[in-house]
């Protein structure tokens, strides 16, 4: 018996940094400098031996792999709390990458509108980095990011770089501001009226808390973006990652195999999706 689909491969966590009040970014290296070979939007199952396993969207792009990849982890459960206590050099088990990512080929030549909310940014960051590393292949790059509070803005330095770039239209908003915040205040949908787009040539990508999707979808559809050009990355508790355990099922769809990336056209009639 060499391996099974449930056997994690032990990898090394080489760096960790804070990015939010409950969020850290982990840099992970597979053995022998091997690349994860993922596509943006795919996820990995991460093990802390003795504690358990949990799924995370890969937060970095294949174009920046350099023998490692990043995941962003919010401290909310057993596995994530154990990860937050780890120091660089610790080992983590990895299975994957799993699932259907973003179809980047279908996005080439198109204007891209990214609308992540809160912890929805990390999986989209994987695609955004890839797009920026092949910047000439895409039209406009519009990023509208919303979080609840200023300190919850993740990847702040990278966002500032995106804001500063001439070839990226990046706007950030927070639901409630404070004395440290001189930017836009309001929920993510308040950023949409100021953005004018050519809907036929625009692909929209969104990921965020369940409550956010319906409102963002209304904005995207209101701008005339076709349902087949709106991509969502959905969160479920994928225990196995390989379509067996049943936990991630969304009506007839398996989030871990059919997703986690879906078009709105795919899930429009799928009642349990949002």
């Amino acid at each position: 018996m060499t391996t099974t689909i449930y056997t994690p491969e032990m990898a090394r966590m080489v760096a960790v940094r804070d990015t939010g009040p409950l969020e850290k970014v982990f840099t992970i290296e597979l053995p022998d400098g091997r690349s994860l070979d993922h596509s943006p939007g795919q996820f990995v199952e991460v093990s802390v031996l003795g504690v358990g396993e949990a799924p995370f969207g890969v937060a970095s792009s294949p174009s920046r792999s350099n023998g490692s990849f990043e995941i962003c982890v919010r401290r909310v459960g057993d596995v994530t709390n154990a990860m937050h206590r780890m120091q660089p050099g610790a080992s983590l088990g990895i299975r994957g990458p799993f699932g259907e990512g973003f179809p980047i080929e279908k996005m080439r030549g198109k204007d891209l509108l990214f609308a992540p909310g809160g912890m929805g940014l990390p999986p989209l960051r994987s695609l955004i980095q890839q797009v920026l590393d092949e910047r000439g292949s895409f039209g406009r790059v519009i990023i509208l990011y919303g979080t609840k509070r200023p300190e919850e803005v993740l990847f702040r330095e990278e966002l500032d770089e995106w804001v500063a770039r001439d070839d990226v239209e990046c706007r950030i908003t927070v639901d409630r501001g404070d004395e440290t915040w001189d930017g836009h205040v309001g929920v993510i949908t308040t950023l949409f009226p100021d953005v004018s787009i050519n809907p036929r040539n625009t692909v929209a990508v969104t990921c965020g808390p369940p409550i956010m999707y319906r409102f963002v979808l209304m904005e995207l559809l209101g701008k005339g973006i076709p349902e087949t050009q709106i991509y969502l990355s959905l969160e479920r508790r994928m225990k196995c990652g390989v379509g067996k355990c049943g936990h991630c099922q969304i009506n007839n769809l398996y989030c871990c195999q059919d997703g986690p990336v879906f078009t709105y056209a795919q899930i429009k009639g799928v009642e349990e999706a949002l």
Partner: protein
Amino acid sequence: MSLRILDKGAVAPLINALRADYRVVGPKAKGSAFAFGPITDPAQLRLDYDTTILPPKKVFQPPEERLVTFTMQGQVEPVVDAEPTVLFGVHTCDLHAIALLDKAFSQDYADAHYLERRKQTTIVSLECLEPCDEHSFCKSMGTLTADEGYDLHLTDLGPAYAVDVATEKGEQLLARYGTTSEATDADVRRLNEVLGAKWPRFTYRLNFDAAELPALLSTAYDHPLWDELAERCLACGSCTNVCPTCYCFNVYDEVNMALTEGERRRRWDSCQLDQFASVAAGENFREARSARQRHRFMRKGKYLYEKFGELGCVGCGRCVRTCVAEISIVDGFNAIHRAA
């Protein structure tokens, strides 16, 4: 492949001979009911059983099992616990269920744990000649008989069993461990009589053709039945535990007292339990009990069919028999059909 005759007096010697090289599992009495378990004495084997509490899926996917062992230093080893097994006395409804599980555990990603046990198991199934009780509806689900899925298949001819030898694995097992004779023309006539005579004893319980289930359920998403069931359902998960085609599981780690090594294990889980579809931040995507009952009905009558080309319900009646709230999947299917 061929038809052999196994005298009933030759069953005990066969079991004894098999026990030297195999774990033999078959139906045994358990209180007032029956359950599949290890046969350590041929007298334990009850081929006259009606139904079992748990289906034989537990031979291939035990309620709990190890997936990997590990040391806290990071040594990880996959574990596949399997041993040569003869599974005796499987009814045809359960054969159909095993056929579905075979697909579930081999499609896309091969599950070595299930498949290795499946590979090391020889299935000796048994034709049902009488309905097990009022809860089964195998005739409606098309599982009252089976053309495949077994290595050897027994039909009770009175003093002897007719043995349909379906695979080389079955043929070799019988040749090596059993004493059988070639079926005569009279045996074949008797077999056909027995098989023909059984059909009128079973009744149709579904008021429509089971092939219509996927289409019927696709119109029933907002049916009032789900709320009615939710009023009665205790969300105990018994229905999914006893279902021969339910295979959902949870995965968890266990560590020894010295905190030096541990195991990653899986155990049966149930979409009827309230936390099944929840995520870490607290969102529960199937919070309402009505949505969970709907999910079970949809999986049995529609989703699994769409994924594997087989209905997820084989009409064994176990979920109906075990439900303390007396929820009946066949009554539910009929109610949806009446409303359609």
